[in-house]
C-alpha cells in the first residue's frame, strides 16, 4: 500500500506542478518540447521528430493581456493559453501546434502569429468529413506537412522506424490509460475523483516512455488490493474538462466518485484503440475518423447520447455530470441532443457551467450537494 500511495503521490505532484515536471522531463530526455493545443494533435509525430509533446489545456492565470484578442465571451482555455503565451511563459517551447476544431481555435491561429511571434506556430486543419476516404487522405497529407515543419525545427528526419516506434509507444500509453480508468472504478476511495484526474493529467507533462511504466506499476499495485466498498455516489462526467481546480475537491467532499468520463482532456484522448490503416499515418487518421461521441469531431449519427447511456449502465453509475465549458459552442450544440436521450433512459443529469478560473465555487458546491441529496 505504501508503494502504491507513493506512486500516486508522485503522479499527483507531477500534474500539480506542470512547468517543473516538464522542465524535468526535458532535462532527463534532453529533448525540447512542442506545445499541443486542444483537442487532438499528432503527438506521435511530434515525439518521432525528437520533441516532447506537451498538452496545453489552459490554466488558472488572471487574464489581462489576452483580452486584446479574446474577449470575455471566448473559451476560457483559449484565453488562458493566449495569456500565458503573451506573458512569455511558453517561450521555452520550440513551437506550438494549433488544430482548428472550433471557431475560436481558427481565429487564435492568426492572433498567435501577432501576439506571440517568439513561439513558432504550426497550424493544423482537420477534415470536417473525417470518415470518408478523401478525409482520411487529406488528414494524412496534413500529417506529412506538419512532419516536415517539425523536421525543419529539430533538424532530425522522421523515419518509418521512428514513427512506428513512437506510434507503438502511444498505443501502449492509450491502452494503459484504458486499463487504469477501468480499474479505478473498483477503487473509488484510493483513486478518488481528484486523484483520478491528476493521474490522467500527469501524462501531459511527462515523456510517455517514463509515464507508461509508472502507470502500469500503479495498476499492478492497485489490482493486488480487494475492491473498495463505497458508500457514496458514482457518476459519469462529460464535457471538455473537470476544472477549475476546486471542482473535483467538491466531488470528493461530497463523496462522489467519477466512475467513467467522456471528457475531451481525459478519456476522449485514449478510449479508442487503433484498428485499421496500412501506414502509421493512416492509422493515426483512422483513429480520428473512428472516434465517436466527441463534439469537436463532426458526427452525423450523433452517437454521444448512447455512448453516455452505455457508460452509466456499464459502470453502475447513479447519474451524469455535465461540465459545460462556458462559451464552448460545439459542446453546447450537443447538449440538447444527448440530454433528451439521457432523460429517456431515466438517467439523472447535473448540469454545471464551468470556466477554467472561477473565483467562487459555492454555487457549484450547492448544485453538487443538491444532486447527491436528490439521488438519495
Amino acid at each position, binding site marked *: 500500500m505504501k508503494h502504491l500511495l507513493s506512486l500516486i503521490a508522485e503522479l499527483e505532484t507531477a500534474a500539480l506542478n506542470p512547468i517543473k515536471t516538464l522542465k524535468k522531463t526535458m532535462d532527463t530526455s534532453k529533448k525540447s518540447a512542442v506545445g499541443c493545443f486542444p483537442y487532438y494533435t499528432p503527438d506521435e509525430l511530434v515525439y518521432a521528430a525528437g520533441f516532447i509533446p506537451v498538452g496545453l489545456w489552459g490554466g488558472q492565470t488572471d487574464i489581462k493581456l489576452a483580452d486584446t484578442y479574446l474577449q470575455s465571451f471566448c473559451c476560457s482555455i483559449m484565453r488562458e493559453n493566449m495569456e500565458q503565451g503573451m506573458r512569455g511563459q511558453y517561450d521555452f517551447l520550440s513551437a506550438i501546434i494549433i488544430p482548428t476544431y472550433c471557431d475560436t481555435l481558427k481565429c487564435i491561429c492568426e492572433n498567435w502569429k501577432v501576439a506571440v511571434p517568439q513561439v513558432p506556430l504550426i497550424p493544423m486543419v482537420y477534415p470536417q468529413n473525417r470518415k470518408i476516404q478523401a478525409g482520411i487522405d487529406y488528414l494524412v497529407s496534413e500529417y506529412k506537412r506538419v512532419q516536415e515543419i517539425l523536421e525543419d525545427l529539430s533538424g532530425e528526419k522522421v523515419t518509418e522506424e521512428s514513427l512506428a516506434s513512437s506510434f507503438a509507444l502511444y498505443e501502449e500509453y492509450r491502452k494503459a490509460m484504458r486499463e487504469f480508468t477501468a480499474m479505478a472504478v473498483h477503487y473509488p476511495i484510493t483513486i478518488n475523483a481528484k486523484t483520478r484526474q491528476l493521474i490522467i493529467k500527469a501524462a501531459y507533462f511527462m515523456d510517455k516512455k517514463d509515464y507508461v511504466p509508472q502507470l502500469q506499476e500503479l495498476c499492478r499495485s492497485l489490482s493486488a488490493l480487494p475492491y473498495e466498498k463505497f458508500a457514496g455516489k458514482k457518476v459519469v462526467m462529460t464535457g471538455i474538462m473537470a476544472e477549475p481546480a476546486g471542482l473535483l475537491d467538491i466531488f470528493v467532499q461530497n463523496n462522489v466518485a467519477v466512475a467513467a468520463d467522456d471528457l475531451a482532456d481525459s478519456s476522449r484522448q485514449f478510449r479508442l484503440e487503433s484498428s485499421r490503416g496500412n501506414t502509421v499515418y493512416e492509422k493515426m487518421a483512422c483513429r480520428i475518423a473512428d472516434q465517436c461521441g466527441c463534439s469537436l469531431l463532426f458526427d452525423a449519427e450523433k452517437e454521444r447520447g448512447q455512448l453516455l447511456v452505455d457508460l452509466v449502465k456499464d459502470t453502475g453509475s447513479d447519474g451524469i455530470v455535465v461540465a459545460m465549458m462556458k462559451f464552448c459552442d460545439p459542446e453546447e450544440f450537443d447538449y440538447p441532443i444527448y440530454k433528451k436521450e439521457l432523460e429517456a433512459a431515466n438517467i439523472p443529469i447535473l*448540469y454545471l457551467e464551468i470556466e477554467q478560473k472561477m473565483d467562487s465555487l459555492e454555487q457549484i458546491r450547492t448544485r453538487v450537494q443538491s444532486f447527491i441529496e436528490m439521488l438519495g
Partner: protein
Amino acid sequence: MFLGVDIGSSSSKAVILNNQREVLSTAVINTGTGTRGPEKAVATALEQAELITSDIEYTVVTGYGRITYDKADRQITEISCHGRGAFFLAPQAKTIIDIGGQDAKIIRLDNNGRIENFVMNEKCAAGTGRFLEVMARILDCGIGELSDLSLRTTKELAISSTCTVFAESEVISQLAAGAAKEDVAQGAHRSVANRIAGLAARIGVRQKVVMTGGVALNASMVACLAQEIGHEITVLPMSQVVGALGAALYAVES
C-alpha cells in the same frame, strides 16, 4: 424543539418546530451570510417561542451561508430544504419557484415530495432579487414599493438587456427619454419573469406551481411570472421562511 436556519445572501431566516411539527416561531432578519444576521434570526425565533438555546434538540442549517455556520448539527442544501418545506405546506406542489436575493431556483417534485430535478441560475444577478433591488434604486423607490409602482403601468416597455449592469444603463436612458417610472418598473418585472421562465423550461413546469422566497411577496412579480410560464402560481404562506421550515423538518426527522 427543532431549529431550521436558512442563511441567504441578503437575509437570514429561522424556524422552530416542536415534535408534532407545529411552527412555534419564525424570524426573518434582512442581513445574510457574513453578518450577525443568522445569530439575530435564531435569537429572535428563540425569544418569540420563549425558548433558550438548550431547548433545541437538533439544528439543521441551509442556504448560501450553511458551510460556514458552525452551530448546526447538520447542513443540507437549500434545494432540498425548499422542496421539503414547500411539500409540507402544499402537498400538491410539483414545481417550486424560489427567487432569492442572489439566485433563482426551480425545483420539480414527484407525487411523494421527492426532488425529481432542479435548476439554478448561473452566477449572474439577472433573474434574481438583486436585479429588482438595482431597478428600485434607479427608480428611487423602496424594494417594497416596486410592485405597487409596476401595477400602475399604462404602457408596455421592454428592458431588453439581460445583464443587470447593462439593464441599469438602459433604464437610465429610458428615464432620460421620458419613460414613466411605472412602465419601467413593469418592464423590470417582466425581464426577471422572462429569465425565470427560460430557466423553468429547462426542466419543465408541472402543476401545481408554488412560489417561495422573499420575491414571492411581490404581487407584480408573481403575476408577470404566471403569465410567462402559462400556469397559475400559488404563493405559499410564510414564503420567505420555506427554506428554514424545510431545514427544521429535516431536524425533526434527524
